[in-house]
Structures are given as C-alpha cells and as structure tokens.
C-alpha cells in the first residue's frame, strides 16, 4: 500500500528530464529512456533502462538493468545488470526512480573500472587504453543505441 502511494507520487511528480513511465498498468515495472551524455562515447545514443520495483520499495532499491545493449565496465554486457552503489549498499528511500536515472547517466560519464561487471571494458580502462574503450563503447552505441535501431 505504502509502496503504491509512493510510486504514484513519483509518477505524478516526475519532470520531463527522462522518458520515465511505468509499463502498462503495472506500477511495479518501469522503463526510462536516457540520453548518452555528450562528454562520453555514448553520445547521441538512447538507452532503455528497466526498473523492477520490489514490494518493500522504497526501503529496498529497484532492480535496474539496461535493456539496450551497452559496453560499459559497470554494466553486464549480456544481462544489462548495473553495478552502482546507490542501487545496492547505499540505497536510501531518499532516492527516487528519476534520481536513479540521473545517477545512471552520471555513471556513463564516469565509468568505475575498480568493480567491473564487464571485465573487457574494465581492463581497457585500467590499462589506460582509453582509445580502445572509447571506440568499443562508441561502436556498440552506433550498433544498438541509435534512433534507427530502436523499435
């Protein structure tokens, strides 16, 4: 009950910053479309993110994953799972789904190679080979995240 009230508040209170909505009639599944930040190899890509909201939200975080394939050290290349502290240990009811979208965009600009879910991407950055990382990330952005490829 409290979860529903909270999610309805979030639905009513969200801004136009992202295309963020619940899926169909289900308040417990949401999707957002985020824009790749211009200072990153994900620029002009559009990425769909799915949030699965647990019954005890906002005391527990939603499960967030990329639906759009992305090459990033903190995103699992196959499942789209995201490694981000506010989605796990640092989660607080003070966060919202919209604030999470903002944190995920920030993660695209500032990849963290220390706890990689995508080891290839992590290794490139750790080795200082930003050229390799940027071109791989760019290539997958063009292949999977550009307008013409969205269905």
């Amino acid at each position, binding site marked *: 009950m*409290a979860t529903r*009230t*909270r999610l309805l*508040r*979030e639905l*009513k*209170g969200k801004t136009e910053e992202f295309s963020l909505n619940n899926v169909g009639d289900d308040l417990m599944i949401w999707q957002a479309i985020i824009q790749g930040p211009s200072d990153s190899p994900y620029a002009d890509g559009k990425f769909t993110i799915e949030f699965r909201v647990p019954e*005890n939200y*906002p*005391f527990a975080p939603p499960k967030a994953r990329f639906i759009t394939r992305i090459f990033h050290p903190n995103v699992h290349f196959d499942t789209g799972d995201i*490694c981000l*502290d506010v989605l*796990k*240990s*640092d*989660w*607080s*009811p*003070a*966060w*919202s789904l919209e*604030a999470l979208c903002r944190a995920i965009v920030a993660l695209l600009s500032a990849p963290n190679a220390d*706890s990689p*879910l995508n080891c290839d991407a992590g290794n490139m950055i750790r080795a200082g080979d930003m050229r390799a990382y940027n071109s791989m990330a760019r290539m997958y952005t063009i292949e999977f995240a550009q307008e013409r490829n969205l269905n």
Partner: protein
Amino acid sequence: MEDFSIIKQQDEILREIEERQPMFTPVQDFSSLEVEYASNPPFQAKIPYLQSKYSGFRRTRGDGNCFYRSFIFSLFEQLIQNKSHLSNPDSPYSQIYSAIKQKVLDSGDILNAAGFLPICYEDFIDMISAKLEMIPTTEISQLEDDFKDKIIADTYVMYTRFIVSAFLRLHADEYSGFVEGYPDIVSFCNSEVDPMNRECEQLQIIAMTEAFQIKAEIEYMDRNDRTETTLMSFPFEYTGPDFKIHMLYRPGHYDILYPNRS
C-alpha cells in the same frame, strides 16, 4: 562480482538478526544482562549501578537502526504514558508535544532546503504527523504493535534519518571537520545516514538531539574498571523542558532505559 557477494553476506547476517531479535522486547529487569556478562567482570560490575538508577530496559534489534528507533520510540512512549498532562501547558510533556508537532510540520521545508525531494519524504512526514496527532488516544500497546510491523517501524526510523541528514547538510560548516573517511558532509550523509541499517555514531546523535531539541542521556557501559557506567548528555547545551530520553550503550548497540520513579 566480489561486491555482490559481500552485499549478499551482509543481507544474510541482517536476515538472521531479524529472525532472532524483535524490534523491541517488553521492558525487562537487568537479570538477562547478568547472564550475558557472567564471564565479563568489567561489564558485570556495572550492573548493580544500573539497577540502582533504572527499573529496567527494553532491548531493541541490533540491525544498525537501534539508536534512531530507540530515540523515536521512547519519545512517543513517554508522551503516550503522560497523555493526561498533554493539555496542561505547564507540563514538560505538553511543551515537548507541541514543540515536536511544530517541528514535524516544519520539517518539509527543512528537508527541501537540505536538497531532498518532496516525493521522497512526504509519505514519511505524513505518517509521523498522523501518529503524533493520535497520541492523546493511543495506548502503549498500539505503539508496540506499530514497531512489530517492519514497514511502519522503518518509516519511523527513516523519518529520523531524514532529519539527522538534513541537519548535518544544513550545518555543514560546523560539522564537516568531524566526518572521518569522507571528503565532505554530503558524501558522509549519503553513505552513513540516509541508507537504512547504518549505525549511528556520536555525530548523528548530536545532530538528532540538536535537530529535535530533545535531551538524550546515555549510560555508557564499557571495559573500564569502574563500577559505574559513564553518563553522557546530548545536546551539550540544553535549556528546554524537563524531558529526557534514557539509553544504555554497550559497544555497538543502544537500548532504552527506564529510570526509577522518584
């Protein structure tokens, strides 16, 4: 992946605590402490002193929320216990009751000023306001029932976390020198105050008692060779009504104390 397994392990420890310990026990005498510290002379030696000042204590779950939960529970419990005084403006209970109701009403503006989003805190303020309004017709058993419901209990706790966090964020100049291991107050609050189950250090206790303007007296029980516990009082300067929250601290944990009736 290592990150995930540590979190999984922490979750399991927490689940075990949740299964074993209630949010609060009934008020009990100190005999269980005697058993617990049978082979721990420095702690054992301080129990008679506690018994001389307090009739008993209420244990709370050791899930990292113990200070926050004990504080808000004890505040409500004392107001409910003294509800017959709430309409007497000379009574400290009535003065605290009015002050707290006003603080909760004002807390939306404070949380907003601290950078929190209304969609995130409004439900918490609404519930606390409603619970405060109901105090004149509430029984202790209803308060105890509230804290058997995890969602309601966590809502009380999270409200106090919001208040502590906002206080520190808005007084960053005064307190930023006291955060260890963090570059600033904001990152400290993000990681140590806002998430549930994060333990409360002295800084959060100062912030809590300052923000609510409620006095907390804490008996510290530790390994020293004295036979008395050490009393500390927060906030350091307090001139408000004669009302106190009493707590027992043992390393890593807070419980509520019940003073002898004088």
